[in-house]
């Protein structure tokens, strides 16, 4: 009786495991394909990742694992942290995006108090594709899913800002293919206006050289990267996303220029509207990549401007 039950259970489980291809993608019978419904938008829940136990776990992972590991593989240099003194959370960190290093770079360069209250918008279609990747990135980076293919903006970033969390957004929506900054989408500006939070631009240089698209680990030799936090931007009264977004892009461009040169030079160039286009020169692809793969040259280093 008991053994029969167990045997039948085993048979059932085996049949279901085979029929529904456990651990692999389920397949739809060929002629049922026209009838497959549009996949329901399933939002991986990440709420739990911002509760106390996950936070405690993340603290350990970031402090003991991520930070030492990052610093052992690249040599980050961070500037402009004083800008954070001028605002209070929540803020929207807006950064250019060229590498998977960008997120850990921002998290590891933020002061602890800020870092603990910061969460990262990550592409739903990549980071939240499978449950194990989603769980991992939510624990380590405090990510939440965001739909990058447009459509309705997921409500999560707004909710998070509302709950007092800082949110890191990469408005390009994807890593740059050649290290130069891509087109910024409006989402960040819209969020800032909607929730009345300031935008803190973050310029990252060298991450492309260190670990571009296609690499899963940084180049050997601890390549240098710089992370520069810029002055917070707040949307003006009645300012629309359409007006605010270019200001954010301009600030980003200026911040990148400042990192390459000096604050003052960048200021002057800004006044003359001579800030170089952060999307790079219109030249052959290889030259663009060539230039970006050089380690970040820092302009005349004058301690005053540091």
């Amino acid at each position, binding site marked *: 009786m008991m053994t029969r039950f167990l045997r039948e*259970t085993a048979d*059932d489980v085996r049949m279901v495991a085979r029929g529904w291809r456990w651990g692999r993608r389920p397949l739809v019978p060929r002629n049922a394909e026209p009838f497959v*419904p549009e996949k329901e938008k399933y939002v991986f829940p990440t709420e739990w990742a911002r509760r106390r136990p996950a936070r405690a776990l993340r603290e350990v992972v970031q402090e003991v694992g991520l930070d030492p590991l990052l610093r052992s593989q690249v040599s980050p240099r961070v500037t402009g942290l004083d800008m954070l003194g001028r605002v209070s959370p929540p803020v929207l960190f807006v950064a250019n995006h060229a590498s998977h290093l960008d997120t850990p770079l921002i998290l590891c360069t933020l002061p602890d108090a800020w870092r603990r209250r910061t969460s990262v918008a990550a592409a739903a279609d990549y980071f939240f594709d499978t449950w194990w990747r989603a769980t991992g990135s939510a624990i380590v980076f405090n990510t939440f899913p965001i739909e990058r293919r447009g459509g309705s903006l997921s409500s999560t970033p707004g909710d998070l800002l509302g709950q007092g969390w800082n949110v890191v957004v990469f408005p390009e929506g994807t890593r740059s293919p050649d290290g130069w900054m891509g087109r910024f989408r409006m989402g960040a500006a819209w969020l800032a206006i909607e929730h009345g939070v300031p935008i803190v631009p973050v310029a990252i240089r060298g991450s492309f050289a260190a670990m571009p698209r296609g690499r899963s680990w940084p180049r050997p030799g601890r390549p240098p990267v710089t992370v520069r936090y810029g002055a917070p931007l707040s949307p003006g009264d009645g300012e629309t996303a359409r007006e605010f977004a270019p200001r954010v892009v301009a600030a980003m461009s200026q911040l990148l220029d400042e990192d390459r040169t000096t604050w003052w030079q960048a200021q002057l160039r800004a006044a003359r509207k001579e800030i170089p286009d952060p999307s790079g020169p219109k030249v052959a692809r290889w030259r663009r990549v060539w230039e970006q793969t050089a380690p970040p040259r820092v302009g005349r280093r004058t301690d005053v401007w540091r």
Partner: protein
Amino acid sequence: MSRPGFVLQVDDRTPPLVVHEGEGFRLERFPIGTRVVYPPESLPAVRDVDATIRHALLNPEGSEPLSELLRPGMRLTIAFDDISLPLPPMRKPDIRQRVIEQVLTMAAAAGVDDVALISANAVHRRLTPDELRAIVGERVFRSFFPQGLLYNHDAEDPDDLLHVGVTDRNEDVEINRRAAESDLLVYVNVNLVAMDGGHKSVPVGLASYKSLRPHHNSKTMVQSRSFMDPEKSHLHHSAIRMGRLLADHLRIFTIETTLNNDVFPAPYEFLNKREWEWSIRDQASMLAARRALGVAPRKVKRRVFHSLESPYGVTGVHAGETEAVHAKTLANVHRQQMVEVQGQTDVLVMGLPYLGPYNVNSVMNPILATCMGLGYYFNSYRGCPLVRQGGAVILYHPVPNEFSQLHHPSYVDFFEEVLAETTDPVAIEEKFEQSYATDPWYIHLYRTSYAYHGVHPFYMWYWAAHALDHVGDVVWVGADRHTVQRMGFRAASTLSDALEMVSGTVGRSPSLTYLHNPPHLIADVH
């Protein structure tokens, strides 16, 4: 948005498919190339059922609004479909309750005093007070039942039957006297499948045995191709003749309702879904259900299954003149259940669930199982039968030799006495029907207990007459060998055995079609 029904071609990617078999189900791997007919997904339900009902009553088809038909001093009878509909029973409130409540509200407003409610159970068993309450709701029940104004139709009560006339084909029309002598008869129907409703409501539901004979017989049933397609059903033609005759004598206000395909409640929703779309959760529920059914004693299983109530959504309510209403109702039913299928098949496979119209809160005995498979499911077609003439039918059901003495006393005798002698519907009708129909004991039980009429098992067998006439071979998978043998069929333990057994009829590589039912579907065969 609900997706239409479609025909799946089993390929190497197809997961095992659910096959119902009595109080349980199994997963079956069908041979590659098997066609599987899936019903359309549930249509969206109307949002505000009460408003829809009110709209239907006040804007009827081919009739004045109900409120204008009601006047003080009139005699009003409300008849309603009995417990054989819908299947499984509807989660409360039942749609009939909601309709009846509104009808009564209007009647009260119009000052109608003389109101009676009758369950149109023809020769079905009487409903228990609890069952009546479940259908009409507590309010109606409390207002009418204690006064004896809410009751079951009695097809054997000579005092409460009225012979209204004969049709041009010499068919006796004899129905419930109270209904026939009312100033207005309101009929509240649940149109679960295409055979229900229309003129099948009053002339059949409220009929006497005498008035059932013209259409409930083996000859008519063989020629009803199918009885799920009223246009081609001799059964319905006869009912329509009777209905038209009645409509000349009596004001009938028909209210018909249609439901969607939300048959299985939580946690059995996976049975409503297409298997390859099962989530991990669905798979887990399925496994859990299978295992639980594997160890549960039969009684427990029965209780679990019979306590299921379906979360049906209402897809339409139409009221007014019977034929105009029924046209709209049928369109609704077809919209929910019709699936286009190209061509007939050699072998038709069907899994029979635990429930048919005649075993609510009871046992599906071998005769009911046969009626379910070769009657209802086989006839779920329009055009031509899904299986070719002389093809084979494979049915899944355990078919235990088990009868409810309370509900089906005549079935036991039918099985032991009649089927032991012959399984030919014509011979059965000729030799035995009269003696069963007039057996005083069955009549006594039908009238005072909760038993189906003595003649009812004959009807069940006639229901299968068309299939018995059409197919060459019937094999039951997982059935009790002796029981199906008595009924003239054969039993196999697995699908491959069954295919082996029918290979004599249909060859070694027959075309297979599996009717993925329930939820209900009608195959539109071209």
